[in-house]
C-alpha cells in the first residue's frame, strides 16, 4: 500500500483512538449526514468517557448521538439546538451536562476557523442579545459585532457518501452540512462512507474534502465492501 493512501479500519479499531476527556466533533444535522455507524461504535469504545461533543444537535432520544447521553459518555455539549431532545434538557437541569449554545452559523464558522488557522472572528449574529452577555463585543462601522473563538477537536467523526482510497470525499445532498467543516478542525478525522472507489475515480474538480484532511475511513454498517 502506498504511504499516501488513507487507513481503512473497522469501526472498533477507529474508535479506539478516542480517549477519556477528548473533544469529539460529530457531523450531521439531526440524523441527516450523521455517522451512525461510528456513533454506535463510540458507545462501545472504552475511551469514550467524559467527552465534550461538538455537534449541531445531540441526536434524538435513543437515536444517533442521543444514545451517548443515557450511557453517561458526554459531560459537555457544544451546539446550536438541543431543545428537541428532552433528555438533553433533563440532563442539563440535573447538572449532569454542561451546555454551550452557539447560533448555528457561528458554530459552523467557528469550526471552519479552527481548521483554517483563524484566531477568532467577529459576527453580527448574537450581538446585543442575551447570548452575548459576558462576551467581547466590538463596534465595527457603526454596527455591533460579537467575537467568537475557533473550535477544534481531538477527533472528528464525519459521514460522506463516497471516498477514494486516498481519502478524498464527496457528500450526498444535504447530508453534507457540518461534515466538510469538521473534517478540517480535528487532530484525527474518521470518515464513515457508503462507498470506497479507486484513486482517480472522483472528479478532481468536484472533490469536497481533499484527502489531506482525512486520517481513517470506515465503511458504513451495511454498505457493500
Amino acid at each position, binding site marked *: 500500500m502506498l504511504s499516501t493512501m488513507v487507513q481503512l479500519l473497522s469501526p472498533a479499531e477507529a474508535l479506539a483512538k478516542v480517549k477519556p476527556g477528548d473533544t469529539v466533533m460529530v457531523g450531521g444535522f439531526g440524523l441527516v449526514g450523521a455517522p451512525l455507524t461510528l456513533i454506535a461504535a463510540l458507545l462501545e469504545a472504552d475511551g469514550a468517557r467524559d467527552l465534550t461533543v461538538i455537534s449541531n444537535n445531540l441526536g434524538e432520544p435513543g437515536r444517533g448521538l442521543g444514545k451517548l447521553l443515557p450511557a453517561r459518555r458526554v459531560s459537555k455539549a457544544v451546539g446550536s439546538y438541543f*431543545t428537541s431532545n428532552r433528555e438533553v434538557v433533563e440532563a442539563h437541569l440535573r447538572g449532569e451536562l454542561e451546555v454551550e449554545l452557539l447560533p448555528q452559523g457561528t458554530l*459552523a464558522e467557528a469550526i471552519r476557523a479552527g481548521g483554517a488557522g483563524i484566531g477568532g472572528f467577529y459576527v453580527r449574529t448574537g*450581538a446585543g442579545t*442575551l447570548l452575548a452577555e459576558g462576551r467581547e463585543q466590538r463596534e465595527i462601522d457603526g454596527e455591533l459585532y460579537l467575537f467568537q473563538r475557533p473550535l477544534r477537536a481531538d477527533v472528528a467523526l464525519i459521514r460522506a457518501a463516497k471516498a477514494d482510497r486516498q481519502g478524498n470525499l464527496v457528500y450526498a445532498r444535504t447530508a453534507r452540512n457540518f461534515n466538510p467543516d469538521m473534517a478540517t478542525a480535528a487532530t484525527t478525522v474518521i470518515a464513515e462512507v457508503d462507498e470506497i472507489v479507486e484513486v482517480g475515480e472522483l472528479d478532481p474538480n468536484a472533490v469536497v474534502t481533499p484527502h489531506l484532511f482525512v486520517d481513517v475511513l470506515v465503511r458504513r454498517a451495511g454498505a457493500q465492501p
Partner: protein
Amino acid sequence: MSETSTTIAKRVARHIEDGEIVNLGIGIPTLVADHLPDGVDVVLQTENGMLGVGPTPAPDDVDPNLVNAGKLPVSELAGASYFASSASFGMIRGGHVDVAILGALQLDGRGRIANWSIPGKPILGVGGAMDLLVGARKVIVATTHLAKDGSAKIVAEASFPLTADRPVDLIVTERATFAVGDQGLTLIDLADGTTVEWVTENTGAPFAVAPELSTEAAA
C-alpha cells in the same frame, strides 16, 4: 396545519417579489411557498446547505439525505446546489438571501423579535434564527396575532430575550400587517373583517396607521 396558519401564509406570500431568494423558517413560514401569487417565482434556500429546495416528495421518492432546516423531506429542483454549513451561513450573514420568513414568540414596539428563549426555562436551542435576522436583506415575521393564552404577541417591551438587535421589516398576522420603520410599527393592512379598533385592543405596542391602509381578504 390550521386554517389560521394557512391564512397567515397567504398573507405573507403577497409580500414576496418575483425572483427573490427566500429562506423559510420552521412552522407557518414553510407554508408560504404553496401560496405564492401567479407570476411570482422564487428560489428557496435552506440553511442546512441547499439552494433550490423543491416541494415535499411523494412517500416513495423520499431521499433520507435530502431535508430542509425543519428536518422534513424535500425534493430537488433543477438548478439546485448543495454546500457546507459554513458556506450556507456565509450566504445568509453576507446578505445574499433576499427574504427570511420567521416565526416569533414576541415582538417589541421597535419590531425586534424574540423567538428562541422563554424566561425561567433553560436556554438550549437557538438554531439559525439569529443568523437569518442579522443577515437576510428583508425579514418577514409570520405569526398569529395572539399567543395561545390570548395575550398580545406584539408588546411595547419584550419580556422574552430578543433574538437580534436588528428589527424585522414586516410583521404579518392573520389579522393585520405592520411595516417596521425607524419610528416603530405602522399598520399597513387589515384582514377582511378586522377593524383598527380590534388591532389596537390586541396589540401591546403603539403603532401608526398608514393613510393608504389596504384591506386584503384574510383567506
